[in-house]
């Protein structure tokens, strides 16, 4: 069973990780819109390409990546906490899930 404190920390990781990512990305996108620097094809590669309005584009890309990484950060925290507390079953479960996600991501990126 998760303790109330663990639930709270995990919830805060989900909440603030995603809020920071989305907030930074949204503010940067609005800045790009206002300053007329929004690329016609705004893919993630375009966000990190050098050129005009690099800082805003970079923050848009980094914000979305932070949002995508947030569940993995939460899972990593759960796993590390389980290792520290000697809860081996949960630690193994978190490690297996982490490995499965990375494998799936690797397969997906190869297939892309």
């Amino acid at each position, binding site marked *: 069973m998760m303790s109330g404190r663990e639930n709270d920390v995990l919830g805060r990781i989900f909440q603030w990780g995603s809020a920071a990512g989305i907030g930074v990305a949204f503010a940067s996108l609005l800045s790009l819109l206002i300053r007329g620097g929004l690329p016609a094809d705004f893919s993630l590669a375009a966000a990190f390409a050098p050129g005009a309005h690099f800082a805003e584009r970079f923050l848009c890309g980094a914000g979305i990546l932070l949002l995508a990484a947030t569940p993995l950060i939460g899972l990593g925290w759960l796993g590390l906490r389980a290792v520290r507390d000697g809860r081996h079953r949960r630690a193994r479960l978190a490690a297996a899930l982490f490995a499965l*996600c990375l494998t799936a991501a690797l397969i997906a990126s190869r297939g*892309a």
Partner: protein
Amino acid sequence: MNGAFVLYVFAGGLGSGLLGALMGLGGAIVAIPYLNLLLAVPMHAAAACGLVSTLATSCGASGRNLCQSDLVEVDAALLIQLFTAAGSLAGGLLAGAIHGPTLQILFAVMLLYGSVEVGRSLRRRDIDDVLARPPEAARLQTSLAFFFGAGVVCGLLGVGGGLMVVPLLHLFLRLPFKAAAATSNFMMGLTAIPALIAYIGRGDLDLALAIPLAAGVWLGARLGAFLLQQLRSRLLKIMFIGLLVLSAAQMALQGLTGVGG
């Protein structure tokens, strides 16, 4: 792309996040048709944005559900997620080996069966008060094969798992409906990551669409998670049955006409 378009995307995100968090479905089920049919966004770009909306729903709703309620069964979710994700991975690798339209019709039948069973549970008004929390260990172990199977079907069809996972959590694992929806939302975020990486690799993720959508979805999901705690389970189940029937009809139509197979 202009300010008004960003506002439309943001507003659509609010609705998808709200419904996704209430039903435990991730949000893409609303976001993709909204972008594709109403805003004329190409399907592959809409699907990539749908995955971002699933992530934002999962993070926004789980943040609230974990901090301000005890609805999420984290330990059970980790175990179930392992089997569902493994099934989804296997299904993704098998995609193309099985006749798509047949699978879509089979999926539609399973969704209809799920809607009937959720409907039957409506007759027992007190059912959500007597169900076990956390789920019984024996029941959890026997259910893992079903979650693996649900993952395979979702991977084969390329659909989100919430439509199958929520009924399984509620009916088979006997979690109260609100806990099933909250636990499903917690699981959805991890499920979306591998597919999102594939879309990013293909250059299909349009940040100008994804960012305002994610912002709207996140706020909608926070509101949805709040309402999940306030609304009665019976009302949530009736809404969920409606969504199951609609999705089953859409899937059956695609299967019968051969579109999307």
